[in-house]
């Protein structure tokens, strides 16, 4: 949530994604890509949310990858440096970004561990192998990153729900007291 001028608000007409709500309960779901068949709850079609007062900061893909997947900034820098350049030696990437070559190699292995890159080995004329890091199948990556993000979003939504419930319970038990400063730190998962 933000008071910044560039904040965004849900637009049901945008078609980029949809937020549905159940008219009978508090169930709210996010749908990306398709609503066919329509979302349902209690065996009844859910309805598109029409009026949202709250606005949010527009997400930045770099921040999303950093926050949702724990993708190290250096790893993202490496990917962005190489994309579109074709085969690129690790030394050139290191020089371009100002990293040590060992740092580049370490983050490449992290990207492999995260499933965002695949490592292969090419036979070398002088013997041994040359390591090559390349993209995974794009359709597979799309599916994996979307599901991964939904898991992160689900965890975030659960935290918000937990915070709201905790806040309600506290205020019911302490109707005359303000929320303590440590409220947001009082449940697991908060920073």
């Amino acid at each position, binding site marked *: 949530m933000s008071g910044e001028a560039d904040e965004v608000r849900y637009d049901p007409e945008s078609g980029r994604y949809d937020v549905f709500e159940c008219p009978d309960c508090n169930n709210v779901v996010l749908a990306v890509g398709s609503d066919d068949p329509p979302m349902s709850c209690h065996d009844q079609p859910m309805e598109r949310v029409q009026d949202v007062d709250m606005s949010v900061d527009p997400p930045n893909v770099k921040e999303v990858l950093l926050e949702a997947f724990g993708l190290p900034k250096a790893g993202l820098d*490496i*990917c962005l440096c*190489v*994309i*579109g*350049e*074709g*085969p*690129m*030696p*690790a*030394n*050139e*990437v290191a020089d371009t970004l100002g990293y040590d*070559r*060992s740092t*580049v*190699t*370490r983050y*490449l292995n992290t990207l492999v561990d995260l499933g965002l*890159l695949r490592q*292969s080995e*090419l*036979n*070398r*004329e002088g*013997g*041994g*192998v*040359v*390591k*090559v*890091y*390349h*993209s*995974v199948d*794009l359709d597979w990556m799309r599916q994996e990153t979307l599901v991964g993000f939904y898991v992160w979003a689900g965890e975030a939504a659960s935290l918000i729900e937990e915070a709201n419930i905790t806040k309600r319970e506290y205020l019911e038990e302490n109707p005359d007291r303000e929320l303590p400063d440590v409220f947001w730190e009082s449940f697991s998962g908060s920073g």
Partner: protein
Amino acid sequence: MCVTRRTVLAQLVASTDAERRETTTVDALASALGVDKRTTAEHLNALVACELARIDTDSSVRATISGEELLTLDTDGVVLIDPPGRNGDADA
């Protein structure tokens, strides 16, 4: 005309043979790609640094076995090469 490094590698692989040590020249490669010699040479130097191409002392060039194998990976995405260090092992 702009040409990608991968396109240069593909043309090099098509024009040479690593196993039989068949080579070509930068001029011939640039002509086949329809780009200037300088652009071709810049991409070739990067491919050499990746150990995907080799430039001999007589300036003849060819793809290496590694270069030929890279194309069989069938990947257009992020491709970063980490060749072995001087001691023969890739940096950890």
